[in-house]
C-alpha cells in the first residue's frame, strides 16, 4: 500500500510546486493578481517588459552564455574521456575533480573571482616582477559585458558534473573492447571513441545536459558574482524586479519569467539542432575515413582544459581561505602582511543561525527525498516495470528555469501565510533534491542482488523486516552517498532559498551571495569556506561510516 503511494506522492510533491509556481508566474504576467487588484487579463505587462531598456540584450546574454558554457563543458568532458578513459592518469584526475561536484556554484564563482580579478591572486603573483604593475590594472575582467568570466565560472562547475555523468554511463559500454577494435582498425584514441562509443554514452547523459542548459541560461548566483551588469543577464534583472519595493513590478517580473522560459526553450531547441549537426559531422567523419591517428594535440588540449578548469577552482579556493585569515593585504603582495583570526571570530557567532537553517533544510529535504526514492524504487520492483511516464516528471524541476516557477511558488506561499517557514523551505529544496536523490539511488538499487531478499524471505522474514534488516543495511554505502549528494544540492541552492526564506530564513549560500556585494573579501572567504566544508562533510560521512561499519565484512569493502 505504502509503496503504491510512493510514486504518486513523489509526483504530487514535485509537480505540485512546479505547476502552482508556473501558474503563479504566468497569470500575473497577463495581469491577473487579485491581491494587487489585477483581475482582468491584459497584454500591457508584456508590452512594458519589451519596453525595458536593453531587455533583448539581457535575453541574448542569457541565451549565449548558457549555450556556450554548456558546449564548452561538454566538449572538454567528451574529448578528455575520449582521449584518456582507461588510463591511470584518468583515474587520478577523476578523483581530483569529483569533490568539485559537491561545491556550491556560488563558492566556485567566488573562487574564480578571487583568482582572475585585476587585484586577484593571478595578478598578484605576476606583479610587479613580470607585469610591472604596482597597482591593479584598470581592466574589466570580472563582470565583463560579454559574460566571459561568468561562462568560465559555469564551465568550472559543469565540467565535474558532466564528467561524473559520463563516468556513470561508461560501464554500460564496452570500453576496452571497442578501444582495441578501433585501434586495430587504425583509428586514433579520440576518433575511435567518438565514432564507436560516444553516441551510446551521450544518449545516457542527454537529460543531465539539458538540465545544465536550463540551469546555465537562468542562473542567478553565478551571474551576480561574475556576470555582466550593464545590462545584467535576464534572470538577474527578474530577481531585481521581483524584489522591487513597488509591488506592481511583480507583473513585470512575471512577464520577464515568461521571456526566461522562452529563452531556455529556445536554448534547448538550438541544442537539439546542434546535436543533429554533431551527428552529421560524426557520420561525415566516419564515412570519410577520418582516423585522426595523430591526436596527441587534441588529447593534450583536452587534458589541459580539464586540469585548468579544476585547478583554477582549487587555486581560487585556496585564495579564499587565505583571505579569511588575512589582515591587511595590499596589492601586489602575494601574501597578506598579517594573519589574523579576527574575521573568523567576528563571523562565527553570526553564522550560527544560517548554519542551523542550512543543516536543517538539507537534512530534512534529503531525508524525505530518500524515503520517497526508496518507495518509488520498491514500487518499480513490485510491478516489474520501469518508471512510467509520470515519473519522468521527476526531472521537470531540472528542466524548467528556477525563476520561472519559484516566483509563483513564492506568491502561493504568501497567500497561505507560509512564506519564510521551515516546511516551505524544505518543500522548495525537496523539489530540487528529489531528482538527484532518485538518480543516485536508482542504479545501486537495481544492482542489488535479490537473492539476499529471497534468502531472507525463506527465513520467514516479512517484507518490511527484509527491507530494514537486510537490504537497507547492505546498501548503507549507496544510501549515504545519495544523502551526501542530496545534502550538497540543498546547500548550494540559492534562488529558492532567497525567495522562499524571504530574508528571515537564510542559509550559508544565500548569506554568502548577499555579502558578495559588501566586498569584504575576508568575510566572503569565511562563508565560502563553510560552503565548501558542508558538502565535503557529507561525503566524508558517506565514505567513512560504511568503512567503519563494514570493517569486519570483507565482501562489503570497496
Amino acid at each position, binding site marked *: 500500500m505504502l509503496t503504491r503511494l510512493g510514486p504518486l506522492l513523489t509526483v504530487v510533491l514535485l509537480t505540485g510546486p512546479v505547476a502552482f509556481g508556473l501558474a503563479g508566474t504566468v497569470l500575473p504576467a497577463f495581469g491577473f493578481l487579485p491581491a494587487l487588484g489585477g483581475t482582468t487579463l491584459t497584454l500591457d505587462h508584456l508590452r512594458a517588459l519589451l519596453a525595458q531598456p536593453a531587455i533583448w540584450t539581457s535575453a541574448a546574454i542569457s541565451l549565449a552564455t548558457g549555450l556556450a558554457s554548456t558546449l564548452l563543458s561538454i566538449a572538454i568532458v567528451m574529448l578528455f574521456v575520449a582521449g584518456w578513459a582507461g588510463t591511470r592518469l584518468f583515474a587520478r584526475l577523476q578523483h581530483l575533480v569529483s569533490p568539485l561536484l559537491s561545491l556550491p556554484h556560488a563558492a566556485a564563482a567566488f573562487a574564480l573571482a578571487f583568482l582572475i580579478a585585476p587585484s586577484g591572486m593571478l595578478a598578484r603573483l605576476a606583479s610587479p616582477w613580470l607585469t610591472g604593475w604596482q597597482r591593479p590594472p584598470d581592466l574589466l575582467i570580472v563582470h565583463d559585458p560579454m559574460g566571459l568570466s561568468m561562462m568560465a565560472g559555469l564551465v568550472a562547475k559543469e565540467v565535474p558534473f558532466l564528467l561524473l555523468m559520463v563516468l556513470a554511463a561508461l560501464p554500460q559500454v564496452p570500453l576496452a573492447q571497442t578501444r582495441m577494435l578501433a585501434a586495430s582498425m587504425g583509428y586514433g584514441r579520440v576518433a575511435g571513441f567518438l565514432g564507436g562509443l560516444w553516441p551510446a554514452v551521450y544518449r545516457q547523459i542527454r537529460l543531465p545536459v539539458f538540465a545544465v542548459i536550463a540551469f546555465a541560461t537562468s542562473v542567478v548566483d553565478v551571474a551576480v558574482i561574475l556576470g555582466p551588469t*550593464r*545590462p545584467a543577464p535576464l534572470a538577474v534583472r527578474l530577481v531585481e524586479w521581483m524584489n522591487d519595493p513597488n509591488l506592481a513590478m511583480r507583473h513585470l517580473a512575471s512577464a520577464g519569467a515568461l521571456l526566461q522560459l522562452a529563452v531556455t526553450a529556445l536554448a534547448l531547441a538550438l541544442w537539439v539542432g546542434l546535436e543533429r549537426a554533431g551527428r552529421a559531422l560524426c557520420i561525415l567523419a566516419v564515412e570519410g575515413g577520418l582516423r585522426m591517428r595523430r591526436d596527441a594535440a587534441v588529447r593534450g588540449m583536452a587534458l589541459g582544459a580539464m586540469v585548468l578548469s579544476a585547478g583554477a577552482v582549487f587555486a581560487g579556493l585556496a585564495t579564499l581561505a587565505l583571505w579569511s585569515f588575512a589582515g591587511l593585504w595590499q596589492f601586489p603582495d602575494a601574501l597578506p602582511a598579517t594573519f589574523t583570526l579576527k574575521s573568523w571570530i567576528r563571523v562565527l557567532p553570526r553564522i550560527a543561525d544560517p548554519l542551523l537553517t542550512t543543516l536543517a533544510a538539507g537534512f530534512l529535504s534529503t531525508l524525505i527525498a530518500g524515503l520517497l526514492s526508496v518507495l518509488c524504487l520498491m514500487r518499480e520492483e513490485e510491478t516489474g516495470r520501469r518508471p512510467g511516464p509520470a515519473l519522468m516528471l521527476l526531472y521537470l524541476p531540472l528542466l524548467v528555469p528556477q525563476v520561472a516557477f519559484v516566483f509563483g511558488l513564492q506568491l502561493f506561499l504568501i497567500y497561505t501565510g507560509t512564506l519564510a517557514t521551515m516546511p516551505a523551505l524544505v518543500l522548495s529544496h525537496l523539489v530540487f533534491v528529489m531528482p538527484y536523490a532518485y538518480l543516485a539511488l536508482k542504479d545501486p538499487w537495481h544492482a542489488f542482488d535479490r537473492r539476499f531478499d529471497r534468502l531472507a524471505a525463506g527465513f520467514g522474514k516479512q517484507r518490511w523486516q527484509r527491507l530494514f534488516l537486510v537490504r537497507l543495511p547492505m546498501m548503507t554505502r549507496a544510501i549515504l552517498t545519495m544523502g551526501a549528494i542530496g545534502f550538497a544540492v540543498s546547500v548550494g541552492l540559492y534562488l529558492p532559498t532567497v525567495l522562499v526564506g524571504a530574508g528571515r530564513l537564510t542559509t550559508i549560500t544565500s548569506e554568502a551571495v548577499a555579502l558578495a*556585494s559588501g566586498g569584504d573579501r575576508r568575510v566572503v572567504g569565511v562563508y565560502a569556506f563553510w560552503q565548501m566544508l558542508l558538502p565535503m562533510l557529507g561525503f566524508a560521512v558517506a565514505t567513512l561510516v560504511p568503512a567503519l561499519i563494514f570493517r569486519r565484512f570483507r565482501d562489503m569493502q570497496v
Partner: protein
Amino acid sequence: MPTRIFAAILFVVAAVSARAGEVDPADWHKVVEKARGQTVYFNAWGGSENINAYIEWAAGELERRHGVRLVHVKLDDTAKAVATVVAEKAAGRDTGGAVDLVWINGENFAAMKRRGLLFAPGWAQALPNWRHVDHENKPTILTDFTIPVDGLASPWGMAKLVFFYDSARVEKNALPDSAEALLRWAEAHPGRFSYPRPPDFIGSSFLKQVLTEKVEDASVLLKPVVEEDFQAVTAPLFAYLDALHPVAWRSGRIFPRNYPAMKQLLADGELDIIFAFNPAEASSAIANGELPDTVRSFTFPAGTLANTHFVAIPYNASAKAGALVTANFLLSPEAQARKQDPAVWGDPTVLAMDKLGPQDRARFAALELGPATLAPEELGPALPEPHPSWMERIEEEWKRRYTAEN
C-alpha cells in the same frame, strides 16, 4: 441574526485584542515589562560587517538586560522593508506584521509616513533617553530630507558625506575641493574614481551632492519635483555624469555595488578617492586591518550633504514594546558611545555632550577619533538633503540612461 451576533462578538474580540497589542510609550514601566520575552525583527541594511557586529552586540545586551531577543534581518535595500509593510497593509494584516523595527531615513521614511505605515507620532520624544538628544543643534533630527519627523522615528546616528584617499599614493595638495574639481581630478587621473551604482543609497547620495552643487537655484531641491522642470533642473547633473563616466573606474562600464566595495577597491589600489556617509569609516577600517593606516579624509569647503538616520516602528509591528525598548537602548549614552568608537563602527552620536552626566561624557571623551577622521569642526558646512522625490526621480532617470552600456 445569529451571524450578526457572531460578527459583533468577533468585532469586540478583535477590538480588545488590538487594544491589548497597543503600547503607550509614556508608561515606560509597562513597556519594559511587556517587552520581556518579545522577539524584535530589526530590518536593517546588512552590507557592512562592522555595523552587523555592532547590532550583534546590541542584541546580546538587550537579551541580557531586558529579555528582548533582537533578530537582525539583513536587507540589501531598506525599500524592501517598506514593501513588506505595504504588502501587509494591502492584505489587511494590521497586526502581527513581520517588521518590528526598521533602520530608515530619506525617501523610505517619507514613503512610510505618507502612507501612514508608522507607529504613533511622538513616541520618539517619549523615550526616556530622548532627554540626551541634541535636537537643538542638529536640525536633521527633527526634519529628515525636508520632511518633519514628528516623533515617528527615533534618531540613531549622524551622517555626513566625507571623502577618503590614501596619502601614500595621492598628493594632498591636488585633492579636489568641489564636485567640479573632482571631475577635473578624475580627468587627470583616469580610472581612479567611481561611485556605487544607484539605487545604492550612497551612490544616489553622490548624485544628489553633484546636483546640489551644480543646480542653478538650490532652493527648488527642497520642494517636491515639478515634473515639467525635472529635465532642465537635472541637466547639469547628467552632463556631469556623461563627462565623468569615460574617465571613471573601468571607464564607467561597471560600478561598485556599494561603499564597502569601494573600500576594498581603495585597499587594492584600484580607486584613489572614495567616499562614505560616515566620517569615521576609514579610521574604523584601519582599525580592522581593511585599509592601510595612510588613508586620510577630506570634505568640500563649500559643504557636503548631511543627514540623520533613524529607527522607526511599523504601525502593524508584532513586538512594539520590544521595539521601543530597543530604540531606547540604541539611544543610551553607552550604546551611542560604543557606536562612535572607530574600533567598532565610528558612527557619530545624536546625543548632546552637555546633556550627559560626567561619567557618560567621559565615555565619549575617551574615544580616539582615529588617524583618518576629521575633527567635527573640520567637517565643513552641512548641505541640506533635497526633498525625497528628487532621489526617486534621479534614480529612475539614471536607470533609464545607464542600464545598458550604449
